[in-house]
């Protein structure tokens, strides 16, 4: 079998050997075992299902949380001649969805967003094909303590229950043991075969720079880093506006560098263009919200800067993990202002409904129930009317379902039950919020710590952290200038702009 696997690997993907963990996970999956794989970002997680999907006789369904990520992945796979793949998601036109459903048995791999798996028609179609494997990508989303909790993920077990014969493969890049336990239990597939690998990235040096004199100093420090370590760079922001603003600031300050911004507010096509430009080194700096990087496989990113911090250590580890996939020395820099603690704290506040919001929604639903109406789906109008965002609406819907106040859109009508439920959910939300707050504080404490940043970061995820002799972290000492990347071209585009004739000629006729 082992040698055969290598043959498959070479035939389908052109690689000669597996990366760490891939063979172990794939072997167990092919044996029909339920597997939980924790592999660092950039270690080829997706191959762990792409290869079995090719080998297994039936269909492999991959549940993925982010639609844009899903679309990117399908495009990339198709680009690499993996054609029997499609994605089903709620942004698709009805017609396209139908077409994919009709041809379901022609695919080897189907990506799906978790909410679509709840769709009765899709479930019906699934019954008509053989499903060889279920994969849960970004499996930490199942855990309420994972940094990206998605209530929809918790409903998966009901689906899987009907497919006891099909193994489940849960994959994630970051999961503390608490989260690992959660994943196993939430899926009701205990025990899962666990394969966890160190997520410590030895080639990434960690710098936390304390900013004491406000925004101006922060911007100046940013420019200093970009100047001292010219390299393909991602800069993370927590707001779209700031990402745009700083992108144009860098454009003005460093005219010989190519910079662009990237966020979920842009059109799909534009986002793809920016990603590809970055991939082909037409751009060297991307100012981005956390939407960036999940789908792209660029190996020569050597600098990741956090202009704003995320809300969890796990997101942080995942974001810096986009650096140095080629194994070369890379640098992570956090520009940290103590006063900006408020930013992640405010963000998490918006991710959990307040008592007021809970009451408004429950009263509204109770009223619908008394008129015998069912639950509406989320819309812009509903959001306006009830003053609630989509994250919180989904959170509440899940809580109500979980607490048996609704089933298949039909609501409980007994008023006394509603009174009780408002209290229950409020209590739960409060504790959920406090947990999220703890996670923010872990990150803050890490940044404000004075001991080795490498040890104090990774000990949250694993017992043993390997020592790094040179350029470990800013508390142990890092020589910044050693991270300058000579391959970054001080762009030719600074020279005289080509006219359309030359531009067209070089585009169409270069190499002809």
């Amino acid at each position: 079998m082992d040698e055969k696997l290598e043959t498959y690997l070479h035939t389908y993907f052109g690689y000669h050997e597996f990366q760490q963990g891939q063979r172990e996970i794939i072997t167990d999956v092919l044996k029909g075992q339920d597997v939980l794989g924790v592999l660092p970002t950039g270690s080829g997680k997706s191959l762990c299902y792409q290869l079995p999907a090719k080998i297994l006789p039936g269909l492999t369904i991959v549940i993925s949380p982010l639609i844009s990520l899903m679309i990117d992945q399908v495009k990339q796979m198709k680009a690499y001649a993996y054609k029997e793949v499609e994605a089903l998601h709620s942004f698709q036109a009805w017609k396209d969805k139908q077409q994919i459903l009709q041809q379901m048995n022609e695919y080897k791999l189907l990506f799906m967003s978790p909410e679509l798996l709840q769709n009765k028609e899709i479930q019906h179609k699934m019954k008509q094909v053989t499903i060889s494997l279920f994969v849960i990508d970004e499996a930490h989303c199942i855990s309420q303590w994972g940094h990206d909790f998605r209530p929809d993920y918790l409903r998966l077990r009901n689906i899987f229950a009907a497919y006891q014969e099909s193994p489940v493969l849960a994959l994630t890049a970051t999961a503390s043991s608490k989260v690992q336990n959660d994943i196993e239990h939430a899926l009701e597939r205990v025990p899962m075969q666990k394969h966890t690998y160190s997520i410590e990235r030895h080639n990434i040096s960690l710098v936390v720079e304390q900013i004491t004199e406000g925004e101006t100093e922060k911007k100046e420090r940013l420019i200093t880093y970009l100047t001292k370590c010219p390299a393909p760079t991602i800069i993370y922001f927590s707001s779209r506006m700031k990402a745009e603003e700083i992108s144009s600031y860098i454009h003005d300050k460093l005219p010989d560098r190519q910079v662009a911004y990237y966020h979920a507010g842009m059109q799909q096509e534009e986002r793809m263009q920016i990603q590809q430009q970055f991939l082909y080194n037409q751009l060297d700096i991307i100012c981005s919200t956390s939407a960036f990087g999940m789908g792209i496989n660029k190996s020569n990113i050597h600098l990741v800067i956090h202009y704003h911090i995320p809300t969890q250590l796990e997101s942080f580890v995942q974001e810096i993990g986009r650096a140095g996939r080629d194994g070369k020395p890379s640098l992570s820099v956090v520009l940290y202002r103590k006063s900006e603690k408020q930013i992640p704290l405010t963000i998490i506040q918006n991710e959990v409904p307040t008592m007021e919001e809970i009451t408004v929604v429950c009263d509204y639903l109770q009223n619908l129930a008394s008129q015998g109406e069912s639950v509406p789906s989320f819309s812009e109008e509903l959001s306006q009317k009830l003053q609630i965002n989509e994250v919180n609406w989904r959170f509440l819907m899940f809580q109500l379902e979980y607490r048996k106040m609704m089933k298949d859109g039909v609501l409980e009508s007994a008023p006394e039950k509603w009174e009780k439920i408002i209290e229950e959910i409020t209590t739960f939300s409060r504790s959920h919020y406090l947990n999220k707050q703890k996670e923010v504080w872990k990150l803050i404490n890490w940044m404000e710590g004075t001991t080795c940043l490498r040890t104090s970061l990774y000990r949250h995820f694993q017992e043993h952290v390997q020592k790094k002799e040179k350029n470990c972290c800013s508390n142990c000492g890092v020589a910044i200038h050693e991270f300058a990347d000579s391959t970054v071209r001080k762009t030719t585009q600074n020279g005289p702009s080509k006219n359309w004739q030359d531009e067209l000629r070089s585009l169409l006729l270069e190499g002809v």
Partner: protein
Amino acid sequence: MLYQTLLLHMQNALAQERSVSGAYYILTGKQSIQTIQDAKLFHLESYYGVYRSLKKQDYMERIDTLVDSGFLQAVEEENHFELTNKGQYFLNQHQSLLQQYSFQGIHYHSIDRIFYKRLLLLIQVWTNAQQNNATYIPVVDEKAITNWVKKLLQQLPKSANIYLNQLFKEIFFAFKPLDINEALNIWVRQLTGYRQIGLTKQQLAVKFEKSVEDIHLLTTSVTHTLLNQIYKHADEFILLSNIYTQENSATRLTRSAQRTADFLYTHTLEEIAEKRRLKLNTIYDHVVEISLYDVHFPLDRFVPLSVQVQIEQAMKQSGSWKLKEIKANLPEEIRYFDIRLVIAHVQTYLDKGANRSG
């Protein structure tokens, strides 16, 4: 600059007779008979559908800016605007821009995007094939476009560099006589080749120090110019003609109107409405739309000559194209439908000599 000039030009042309949404509907190519008729009436048909992705909010914000900076002012009627002296002066200064850049929205609004995307994808496919690279992400992922390109490629079996050479010659030949270097540069830089990804409109806006709207309009204008060249000299643009096939010419009519047109000479309007399970008013809309495109439209069949004369007089009397005002000057039994048909007829008649001169 171009966008601002165009907005002022359109407000000016609509001469307070339409609310501020009127120009928006024309720019975004709203498929309603009122909009198509307005575009014709006020001689704005070149701009019909030239900016289909324009968001209402962004449009309104720009109008607000024009008001705030004293180019436009509100008139008594709600949501109606007129040009201030400053606005008029600006328009006079920059009107030439609108002559410099040619738009032919009424002809190309339904094909320009498709043509452009086909071309975009073909260039990417050929330049990559030429380098023996099969691993790239297509810049266009609409099924309709990718399927079409796949089919075309099957009909073109020669090696990619032959087509690239031909394409270069044709585009070069079409662009060479034009005196709009900057717009051509902007157009070309959006193309994607082998390991060379086209710039986004936003990136071009920064690079050329223009608004995103201007970049969009300049791009559209270049595409229209190219399409017009191909239309006029199909024999010289062999490859490009293939990309601009005639299969889309019928879409000058809305799809639904086209189906009504199929029945028009064999059924009464009432029968069509029943057959198609549509309201009679919808069929009226279709008929008016059809009449706009068909210079041989048998008006007498729908509106008796005597009524036509009455309506034309009422139009002169009210000195306006506004339906309500015209109707007020006519006997009760004359329908809006009759009036709209006559207006369309007058307009089509006026346009007869000026066919296709965007």
